[in-house]
């Protein structure tokens, strides 16, 4: 029990307690000091990094996308700055009310709203999402005056992609669109994610897709010091963005437009190639579409219109659709016969109008036959019997070997995405293609049909054009390319896109000359002569008709067949005859005979290319071309 104490005793006990308290305070302070030592010395590196992470943010600077121009500088794809109205949902007082009130100031239609909803789902609430694009100056002024009413809404200047020529060459140029999940995965795979920070758009098709890496450019970065609220306070350093490279095409837009006009409202494709370089001068797939529709995200209505159309405007027929080549196959067969030694130019056959094979009679178009037929005549009159026999002599492997060298039945590796392989038939192909054993077997009769360009073989207009180019240039097979130069935006340096042939077929010049002579004759007196009547230059060509539907047993009467069941019309050509500057393939779907629809289109294109002549109307259909058809 604590009881009475003398003051002196009290005082000394108090001093003891003061000492205890003092020691306690000292120990506590040593604890603090050791804590500081731990944080500031032992864990310094860790906290130093944490503090740096805290304060430095990298803000991307999005590069301008490269432009695309044709060989003469005509712009196919460019950028322009416009104002967008953007909403940061997290900063608004109610999204619906904001949009409603905004609509009173700047019209926002149902389409804008739908697109906004879609974008909203893909974004986070603190990101700014565009609701209206391309505001007029007046709209910008109206909004700015009332901005105080709209927290979380802002006007931003952004660059938009623009395709000034609209539907012209749209299958070549393609389009860009907003980066979606699949694009993101692809970007991750390429290990390119950093370069796409801040980018909204990416190439989706055409050159915009295949040259994405060149067009996009390099994203710049600004190192900024940010405060706890994430607001940039000070710029520490900045690495400017590098504008994407520009593309200069081999394409001649004037030629392209003339070819497009020549098609009128017909469906089909045209590929024109410079045979000395492999450069693509024109690449048409008709009908076409306006790529501008895709840039901001295509509306459901527009998408349905394009996607559900029986004409399939989104389909790139020039590189994706493969058709039996019909008689346009014959010049290549003739060359194969000469090169393999199975035929000489002078060797002739007597054509009775049919070819018997294994108990089956393969008919010629001309009843009674063409009489005596040598190689030259076989092409000019398009004699089936000659090629039935030649196919039989070459055998399917002989045909396949030669044609594959020309690039038929395999991708040409054109610098566009989405090319089809086509079909170069062979026993191996048939085994792979079919499941049932009896279907898998290769029959001799199959070979006979292939010989005249019917049967299983099917090639894209691009393959036909490229093979024609290789034929007329004496066997140089190029990888065709749309882009001629990639122009570095920093140095202005032009990088040439591979003019070297990927393969040279060992052809004898006299063999090539024999075939070319026959093709020139086709355009003089043969099936191409009506289309090329009066041309001030010499050209070579070959018509072809790809059977869509065979009416067994009865003579083919075109008028009775519904339009979609009409044969496809083919034409391959080159000009001028002595020193070819252009080689092309034209296909008109359901265009009937080659001489009827395809050849007149070729005429207009070659006329412009050699003479600068502009027809400015669709190529006429030669309704009388029925006679002497191939």
């Amino acid at each position, binding site marked *: 029990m604590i009881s*009475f104490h003398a003051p002196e005793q009290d005082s000394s006990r108090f001093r003891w307690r003061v000492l205890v308290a003092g020691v306690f305070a000292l120990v506590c302070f040593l604890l603090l000091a050791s804590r500081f030592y731990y944080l500031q010395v032992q864990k310094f590196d860790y906290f130093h990094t944490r503090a740096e992470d805290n304060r430095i943010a990298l803000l991307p600077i999005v590069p301008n996308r490269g432009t695309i121009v044709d060989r003469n500088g005509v712009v196919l794809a460019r950028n322009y700055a416009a104002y967008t109205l953007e909403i940061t949902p997290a900063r608004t007082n109610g999204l619906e009310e904001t949009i409603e009130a905004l609509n009173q100031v700047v019209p926002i239609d149902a389409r804008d709203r739908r697109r906004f909803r879609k974008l909203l789902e893909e974004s986070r609430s603190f990101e700014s999402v565009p609701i209206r694009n391309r505001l007029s100056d007046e709209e910008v002024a109206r909004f700015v005056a009332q901005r105080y009413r709209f927290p979380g809404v802002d006007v931003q200047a952004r660059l938009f992609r623009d395709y000034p020529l609209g539907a012209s060459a749209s299958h070549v140029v393609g389009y860009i669109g907003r980066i979606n999940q699949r694009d993101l995965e692809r970007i991750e795979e390429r290990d390119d994610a950093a370069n796409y920070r801040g980018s909204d758009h990416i190439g989706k098709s055409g050159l915009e897709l295949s040259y994405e890496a060149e067009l996009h450019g390099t994203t710049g970065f600004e190192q900024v010091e940010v405060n706890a609220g994430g607001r940039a306070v000070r710029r520490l350093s900045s690495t400017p963005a590098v504008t994407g490279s520009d593309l200069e095409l081999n394409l001649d837009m004037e030629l392209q437009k003339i070819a497009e006009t020549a098609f009128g409202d017909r469906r089909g494709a045209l590929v024109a190639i410079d045979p000395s370089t492999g450069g693509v001068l024109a690449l048409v797939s008709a009908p076409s579409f306006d790529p501008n529709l895709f840039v901001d995200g295509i509306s459901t209505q527009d998408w349905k219109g394009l996607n559900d159309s029986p004409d399939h405007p989104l389909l790139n027929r020039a590189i994706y659709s493969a058709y039996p080549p019909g008689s346009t196959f014959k010049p290549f067969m003739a060359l194969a016969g000469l090169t393999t030694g199975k035929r000489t130019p002078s060797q002739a056959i007597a054509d009775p109008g049919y070819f018997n094979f294994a108990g089956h009679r393969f008919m010629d178009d001309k009843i009674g036959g063409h009489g005596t037929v040598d190689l030259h005549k076989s092409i000019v009159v398009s004699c089936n019997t000659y090629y039935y026999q030649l196919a039989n002599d070459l055998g399917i492997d002989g045909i396949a070997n030669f044609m594959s060298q020309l690039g038929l039945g395999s991708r040409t590796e054109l610098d566009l995405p989405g090319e089809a392989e086509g079909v170069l038939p062979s026993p191996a192909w048939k085994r792979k293609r079919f499941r049932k054993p009896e279907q898998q077997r290769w029959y001799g009769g199959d070979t006979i049909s292939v010989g005249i360009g019917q049967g299983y073989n099917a090639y894209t207009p691009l393959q036909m054009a490229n093979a024609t180019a290789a034929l007329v240039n004496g066997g140089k097979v190029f990888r065709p390319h749309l882009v001629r130069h990639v122009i570095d935006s920093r140095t202005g340096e032009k990088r040439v896109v591979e003019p070297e042939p990927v393969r040279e077929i060992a052809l004898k010049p006299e063999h090539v000359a024999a075939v070319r002579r026959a093709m020139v004759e086709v355009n003089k007196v043969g099936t191409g002569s009506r289309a090329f009547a009066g041309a001030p230059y010499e050209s070579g060509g070959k018509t072809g008709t790809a059977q869509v539907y065979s009416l067994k047993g009865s003579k083919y009467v075109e008028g009775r067949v519904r339009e979609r069941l009409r044969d496809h019309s083919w034409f391959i050509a080159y000009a001028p005859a002595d020193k070819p500057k252009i080689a092309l393939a034209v296909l008109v779907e359901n265009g009937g005979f080659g001489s009827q629809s395809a050849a007149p289109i070729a005429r207009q294109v070659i006329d412009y290319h050699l003479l600068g002549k502009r027809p400015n109307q669709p190529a006429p259909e030669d309704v009388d071309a029925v006679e002497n058809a191939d």
Partner: protein
Amino acid sequence: MSDNRFHPLRLLQAFLRPIDPVLMLILAALFGYAFVLMSSASPERLDSQMTHMAVAVGVMWFAAWLPSQRLLSLALPLYLAGVVLLVGVALFGEVSKGAQRWLDIGVTRIQPSELMKIAMPLMLAWFFQQREGRIGWREFIFAGLLLAVPVGLIVKQPDLGTSLLVAAAGFYVIFFAGLTWKLIVPVAVVGIVGIGSIVAFGDTLCQPGVEWVGMRDYQKHRVCTLLDPTQDPLGKGFHIIQSTIAIGSGGLMGKGWMDGTQTHLSFLPERHTDFIFAVLAEEFGLFGALVLLVIYLALFARGFLIAARAPTLGTRLLAGAVTMIFFTYAFVNMGMVSGILPVVGVPLPFISYGGTALVTLSLGVGILMSVHRSRLVNKT
């Protein structure tokens, strides 16, 4: 003779007489440090803080000038007034941020719990002095009751931080008055074991469903946040995380005055008030922090020396308690900012921005000076 009386030098001498030069020097060092830190952390508040300092020095001078026995005689009225005001707060107080702490007396709002920080040790020192020579267990029980009433009222508000500080202030007097170790040691052991087990089983105890007996949710939350600041990275945890980053990234010599990135980029919350120590540690490093610790230790040493030499029981208890209050403020604040104690609203003594705490603490310094002077008076 009469001429001499009004001689300016003599006037100055008379004015300076209550001042203890040692304490004044320490206080000047702290104010100097505060000035340097405030001009980095919150220069716009520099002027008003200097006003606070001037007022604080005035209050200090007045307390120092007042004889210590006179000070003690103010204890009962101050204490009673404080309790009445606290009851008033409970009945008519203004509610702000979920707590009822302020009383509107027309002219201004006052926070009676702040007054209690000084009234409490004064009251107990006075009480023990009254019972000098007759202090037994009854006195300790009565002292405990005197302490429990205001502390209970402050806990009710609720204001955990202030109630702990007031309880500590009262406890120091009782401790210095000679409370038996037989009581202190077991309570200390229970306390340490209790805190230890909270730390050890924090994960389980901090599960959302678990209710803590006698504690409000926010109090539990504070303790749990201390145990694992990452649990609440954007709330209270954010403060601790950012202040430890500030301290740790300061390193040995600091980032330099005005160059603290945590401070200047607003990552540091309340950088001019409760978390100003983090500014110091970031900009002046371990070196700057240790300098502050040394200044504080000098303050305590001087305080304890004054207490040990004090002539009467009341002044001894008062001086000892006031010194321990300084220590408590400093330790709790720095412990909280460096992440070893829960986040409770305690300013860094003499450094943090704010008038009320500065006045209260300077009053404490004045009391020490007064006690120091009473010894000299007794001697002469």
